[in-house]
């Protein structure tokens, strides 16, 4: 089984710890995964903003980087969704069918752990009060269901509290966050309020981009709530504590 990790451009540049956590976690589970260095981005920022021509070379770089692997694992529901559903659109635009070939092999982290590895207890330890926000693309584009929750419920020491209106969008939406900044922050403010209502110490999600937005609002409100990627929580062990 040849496994590659798609770290994603945002984790690579802004949240390298999440990338490191994925490798730590996979190695602990006996999976020796590669980081194909030619990888850059899934092309989603361009596709979602309507710049399909511009997305073509980015998706081409993606396809070249991951062509030889059986599985591509990524700590992002959004990027997995983009690879699976949007690369077809880009392939059609470019007239290059091979650009759609890596998409079906791309798995969001919790999907890979539960569906491919068949693991729900990853041997993690994280003694904190946590609430979980299911990001829209994980939830609706990929249909990961409660897989992230199954994984979190098996983390020792973790006190999982339910987030009110969990399935409602946080308002990030890529360039939506700046093109419709006021609507985006109105949505995010409601999400942040629900998070505060849980009295959780940590908000966990499967997409750092959504957490960048919610965390940015929580920080502005000086809420004291920390945001953390699912991978960071699952990678934590007793030794880290």
């Amino acid at each position, binding site marked *: 089984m040849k496994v590659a990790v798609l*770290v994603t*451009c945002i*984790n*690579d*540049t*802004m*949240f*390298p710890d999440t*990338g*490191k956590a994925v490798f730590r976690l996979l190695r602990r589970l006996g999976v020796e995964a590669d*980081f194909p*260095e030619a*990888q850059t*981005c899934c092309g989603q*920022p*361009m*596709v979602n*903003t*309507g*710049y*399909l021509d*511009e*997305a073509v*070379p*980015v998706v081409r*770089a993606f396809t070249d980087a991951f062509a030889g692997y059986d599985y591509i694992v990524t700590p992002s529901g959004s990027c997995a969704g983009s690879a699976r*559903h949007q690369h077809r*659109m880009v392939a059609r635009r470019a007239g290059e069918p091979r650009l759609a070939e890596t998409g079906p092999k791309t798995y969001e982290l919790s999907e890979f752990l539960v569906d491919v590895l068949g693991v729900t207890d990853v041997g993690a330890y994280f003694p904190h009060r946590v609430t979980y926000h299911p990001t*829209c693309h994980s*939830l*609706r*584009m990929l249909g990961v269901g409660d897989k992230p929750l199954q994984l979190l419920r098996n983390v020792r020491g973790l006190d999982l509290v339910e987030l009110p209106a969990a399935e*409602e*969008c946080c*308002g*990030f*939406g*890529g*360039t*939506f*966050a700046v*093109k*419709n*900044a*006021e*609507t*985006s*922050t*109105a*949505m*995010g403010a409601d999400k942040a309020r629900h998070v505060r209502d849980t009295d959780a110490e940590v908000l966990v999600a499967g997409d750092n981009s959504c957490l*960048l*937005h919610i*965390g*940015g*609002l929580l*920080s*502005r409100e000086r809420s004291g*709530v920390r945001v*953390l990627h699912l991978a960071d929580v699952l990678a934590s062990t007793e030794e880290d504590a």
Partner: protein
Amino acid sequence: MPAFPAAAREALADSQLRRNLAHATSTIRAKRAAVVGEVDEWEELRLAGAAIKDNTLRHLDEHLLTLEAALQSRGATVHWARDATEACDIVARIAHGHGVGEVVKVKSMATQEIGLNEALAAQGITAWETDLAELIVQLGDDLPSHILVPAIHRNRAEIREIFRREMAAVGRPAPADLTDDPAELAGAARLHLREKFLRARMAVSGANFAVADTGTLVVVESEGNGRMCLTLPEVLVSVVGIEKIVPTWSDLDVFLQLLPRSGTGERMNPYTSTWSGITPGDGPQEMHVVLLDNGRTRALADEVGRQALRCIRCSACLNVCPVYERTGGHAYGSVYPGPIGAILNPLLKGVGVDEQTDSLPYASSLCGACFEACPVRIDIPEVLVHLRSQVVDAHRGGAPKPEAVAMKSAAWVLSDERRLTLAERGMGAAGKALNRFGRAVLPGGRRAVRRLPWPASLWTGARDLPAPPPESFRAWWRRTGRR
């Protein structure tokens, strides 16, 4: 009409409006979820609805001719209207032909889409809306803000105020002691409207469905005002979008299950009226059907976008949309607000025609709640992205906007690993500088930025931004020799 972000600003600042909307949409959402949950084969019904609509649209030309022939054989007159002007002229001509100065109306999106009331007014004909919510909107000299609940942005106190202030000028006044009790408000509207039903010689309706093989039009409603309009006047004119066709009565079965549950959260709508031509001595003795294109063939020609023509105007997408819930319907600048409006308006009008239409495909975070709720499985996020690409393509070639420059540069950096590595080094250096000056500290200890100049201020206006880390993931990977 300003572009969506500017139009939304007013609603976002109106806390009363946002409370009205949040309350109303969450109530309908819960009702819908409960009655949809009762149907075991809901997904199969959705698939059937989508398939019937798709098959019908694929052979729309044939079904339209079948419908025309069936209607004519039952004594109706069929008119074809390419656009709003043609449709309005046809209706006005019929009214003039009968010397009619007023018409009663059944709530209809098609007639609002073409601006029929305004066009008739310009020709000296008054159109009275008889749906309770439409009456509230019309009396308040307001615009509808929801497809099914046009006055969703109004609360009871506001409605009482409108009735008290406006009813007297156009007919029977509201009772002097009118309170904001819903039953009293409905009672006042009933008495006010009854005069108009009994007086009117001509009615105008739309149709939820048009059954091709029998030449039957169908309206589903909750109040019964529709059937008063459909049966009392001498002349009936129905303006029907050409996408409303279903081939046979058995196809209706599927939609009469999907529509009320998705729309009002009811198992069945209270009134279903069907009419097919003329019956001597009973009901209207003259019936006209105006088959309306107004951009529908344009939408049909769009391979990805044509699925929007499946829409049965249930509003389920509006009620689950987090953007609609906060901006209200007026920001969309059209009688079709919410997620369906964000795709239907550009499809009907064409992209690149004005800034407002071009802003609509971007009025979504692409969260997908609309697709999940849609009873005919319109993949609204897919169509939104598709239309965004059309908007971008329509503006290629001219002087590039800052956004286009940013996207082209980002794509250039992101299409090559070496360029990305260099860019990350630059960000890392900036991050180190910010680490020294960054004013906020995020829980967990990371530095963050509070204020940045435009365009980054669009982010930092309300959100802190973590400072970029000194070392990117790939730099760490190389440094630690993991490769």
